[in-house]
């Protein structure tokens, strides 16, 4: 009987020739041994999969229930709009302050470069 190493070294043509050679007897229990060697899914795979799915659902559920959507502060869209405007006015005010400082720095740099 050939070892696995010897079989792996055989070419495809050799393997085909051997498989067609009816003089070589096929062991009776070969089919059963091959089936037994085929890896079956582990016993824990199904319960572990179910546990993972349950854990995921629980985590999503907990996240959603612990972080519900707040209640709107305004019922009136005009008041809500005014609040958004106020927010943008505040943001713009900060940006304007930053832009002014940058402009002042540029002027100072210009003056310094003039006296150099």
């Amino acid at each position, binding site marked *: 009987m050939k070892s696995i190493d010897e079989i792996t070294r055989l070419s495809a043509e050799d393997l085909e020739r051997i498989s067609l050679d009816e003089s070589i007897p096929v062991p009776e229990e070969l089919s059963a041994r091959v089936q037994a060697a085929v890896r079956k899914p582990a016993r824990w795979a199904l319960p572990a999969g179910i546990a993972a799915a349950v854990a995921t659902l629980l985590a999503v559920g907990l996240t959603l229930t612990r972080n519900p959507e707040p209640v*709107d502060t305004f019922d009136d869209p005009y008041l809500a709009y005014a609040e958004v405007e106020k927010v943008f006015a505040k943001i713009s005010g900060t*940006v*304007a302050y930053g832009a002014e400082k940058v402009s002042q720095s540029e002027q100072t740099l210009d003056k310094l470069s003039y006296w150099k």
Partner: protein
Amino acid sequence: MKKLYILVAMLLLSITALAQDGRSLYNKYSDYDDVEAVYISPAMFRLIGKIPDMEMDGENVNLGPIIKSLSGLYILSIKQGAIADDLAADVNRFIKKGQYELLMEAKDSGEVTRMYTVGDDSVVNSFVMLSHDGAETNFICLDGTIPRDKLESLIADAAKD
């Protein structure tokens, strides 16, 4: 089996990370005493977007180009103290986790303001402004699918006025 445990742990961690957003901060702090809180929902933004040519007197800001792209506004104002410190720490944590990018920082007479955005070159998915002046800490979080160019030109135009 080990791989499965790692996968489940990563999944749970990512879900927990998702929970770190403007809404979770709002839910955490809005019920405290001495906290001013404002929330505007996606439904309200949709309603505002449906009202034609809505304009208000007072602030010189034209929100028309972006109002429909907004989906949530969270504002928290907290007087200085332990809760305000906690809020600032939580905001900094969520900025880090959410991979926000610092847009600008301004310091003026003890008031520090930082603005952050997250998104890509064309869209801003969230805008955060955190400011504290020694007396009060303010947190503003604006969510949506906001075209970056429109947001920037809106802020720039308003800043000119």
